[in-house]
């Protein structure tokens, strides 16, 4: 983190970089409550496949969502690197999301973020608010409100 401070600018946002396969995604750190290791997930019957179930997070029952399935990628493969990122949305709702692995924290200057257009047919881009560039690599930035708000529409 210390190294990051040097490039801090007044318009910077911190993202946690997570990986799905080889692709890198960023989650705005202000939504992140916690990152926990993979643990036993209790299946909930009769819910969409992307809801993997619920976990016990310090005595609270928290639903866990597969972003892979949500984005139309293949099913998660649980490895030692799999993590559950606990997200706290603006409405107070707490949701866990499965990721293949957590890479690092980056600070992106808003000028380094490119907006994406929505015309892509690919499902996953529906949840992306922009593409950030860091050390020559591309990071797709999640718009969590899109990820979890979309659900109400399908209801």
């Amino acid at each position, binding site marked *: 983190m210390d190294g990051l401070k040097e490039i801090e600018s007044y318009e910077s946002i911190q993202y946690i970089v997570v990986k799905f396969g080889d692709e890198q995604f960023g989650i705005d750190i202000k939504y992140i409550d916690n990152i926990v290791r993979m643990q036993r997930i*209790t*299946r*909930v*019957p009769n*819910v969409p496949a992307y809801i993997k179930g*619920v976990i016990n997070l310090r005595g609270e*029952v928290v639903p866990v969502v597969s972003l892979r399935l949500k984005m139309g990628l293949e099913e998660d493969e649980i490895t030692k690197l799999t993590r559950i990122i606990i997200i706290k949305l603006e409405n107070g709702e707490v949701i866990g999301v499965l990721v293949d692995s957590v890479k690092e924290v980056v600070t992106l200057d808003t000028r380094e973020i490119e907006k994406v257009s929505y015309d892509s047919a690919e499902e996953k881009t529906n949840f992306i608010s922009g593409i950030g560039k860091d050390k020559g690599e591309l990071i797709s930035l999640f718009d969590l409100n899109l990820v979890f708000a979309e659900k109400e529409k399908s*209801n």
Partner: protein
Amino acid sequence: MDVSQYLEIFLDETKEHLQNLSDQLMNLEQDPENMDTINEIFRAAHTLKGMAGTMGYKRMQNLTHDMENVFSEVRNGTIKADGSMIDILFQCLDALEEYTENIQNTSDEGTNDNEHLIKALNDILAGKGSAPAVSEPVAAPAESAKSVQSTPSAATQNDEAKEKWKAISFSDTDKKVLGEAIKQGKNVFGLSVFVQETCILKAARAFLVYKALEELGEIMISVPSAQDIEDEKFDFDFSVIIISEVDMDKVKAAVMNVSEIENCYIAPIELEVEKHDVVPSAEEKSAEVSVSQHAAGQTPAKAEKKSAAKPIVNRTVRVDIEKLDVLMNLVSELIIAKNSLVSAAQTEGITSNSSVNEPIEYLESVTTNLHESVMKVRMVPIESVVQKFPKMIRDLSKKLDKKMQLFMSGEETELDRTVVDEIGDPLMHLLRNSADHGLESAEIRKKRGKPEVGSIFLDAYQDGNNVVIEVRDDGNGIDVEAVKAKAVEKGKITQEQADAMTDKDAIDLLFQPSFSTAKQVTDVSGRGVGLDVVKSKIESLSGDVEVKTKLGEGSTFIIRLPLTLAIIQALMVEVGGEKYAISLGSIQTIEDIAPNEIKFVQNEEVINLRGDVIPLIRLNKVLDNESTKGPDDNLIVAIVKKGDKLAGLVVDELMGQQEIVIKSLGKYINKSKVISGATILGDGEIALIIDANALL
């Protein structure tokens, strides 16, 4: 006088009196000649006026004053209660409620003078022909108190009996203190104070009398005790013995200065002959001793003084519901911790060790009792919600021009406070629904050979771990075909779907958003926001709504609510290798069923259990997993009950009974119908809770 500390009491009592007034007005409407009712209304109006006056709410006082005037005439038989008058009185009631509301919110009654109501009331009075009614000094509360109407001579005769202080017996210490006081040239008086029987805040009045007396001297003895007086544990009189330096008239004047004091009987106390039997020995003692005795005698008086100065406290405590929520959460945590302890002990294999086992069992019983106590604290009768309904039905009756009557039972049934707070609107919707859609007009009812006056029933009762509230009417019932036709017309379903639909499914359509079969939209109901709101509200409280209806005979809406929202006793079961909890409250029995006992009715599996044909529900199918049992294995069936319906839930294994804490699955998981929540087991694992009611 600073009245703010009495505001709460005032509000509580005002609401009570308004409710009483409303109930009595309803009675009066039924039976306009009933003298008891008229008297009761008069008293309630009078009381309200007195209270409003005491608290300085002038507008409220004026309005109740005029209401009282009208009733005074009704009572005297000079005017008769009729429909239009009762209407006006109901409007007055609404106005009074508005004042009360304002006072509650801002501790000010507001600025609405309600002149039109006052005028209407005066018109009623004027209408009877003899004008002087208004000038009649109804304000004098003494008038209404029968006992005071006795002649002065009779009063004097009664004085002896009223000097109740004479009945006070003195202990030796008291006598010494009194003797000492007299020796010092002080006056000792006994006095009995009578508070007017119409006085509302009598404890407050008594408190003021106390305060006045304490300024003049020292209260030695008080009967009943100062504490009891504070708690309003006295009728209308109390007696004190006071040591004072001022003379009798001054003391009496001070007492009479407090308003709503009916009378004060006072006389100096002469320590009688018996005193001389005891006191001389005391007097002979050294001065030191008597001083210390004097001091000892004073202590109780001082203590009384202190407690008298405290604001009136009831035996009840008002607690913010949030604090109770916190308490409930802590109890939940405790139970989870206890469960982990139990499961840890089991895995360690030390449960056979009685030095571990016994404390754990004790802990279990304590946590169970603790939970029950906290739950009970949170329970309130639904009365506070339903008591406004009779008036609502009356108003609806006028508005819809239908004759109807509401019958209620089980108002004392208790529910969790948070549920009670939420249940009012859904019930109101259902009642309006019954009044508007359910009941037919008087002509149609006549034609159908029903009594002209429609009946609506609201019955509440406890059924196991549930509370059931039924709203029933003897109206037209739900016309299933009309519902289907409407749904087709609205494009909700196709004609084919409609034809294939069972009656039950058709009735369920009513609970869909923006569905109303009312041919005309009235401002009572029929705006399409109603039953769906009722359903979602009840479901948010973990309850459910069921409808029974018979065309031409009426319908019943049955609301079923869990007694507690937080902690239940559950049966833990295994289905397809997963753990689930089923509320023990809904389970009747557990049966072991051989596969050959399963019969088929309309292609559905049923069993015949002691004469009852019970449908089987294979939980592994509902829960979408694979049963661990083979087809030839015996079935473990939990027989569950909802109302008069039974069903058998087939599970793989029974794991035993456990107290579980219900946790919500969160908004994000689209409430899967069969799963009502989740719970955390002792080992930290999550088990889902099956809502048996949703399966039936």
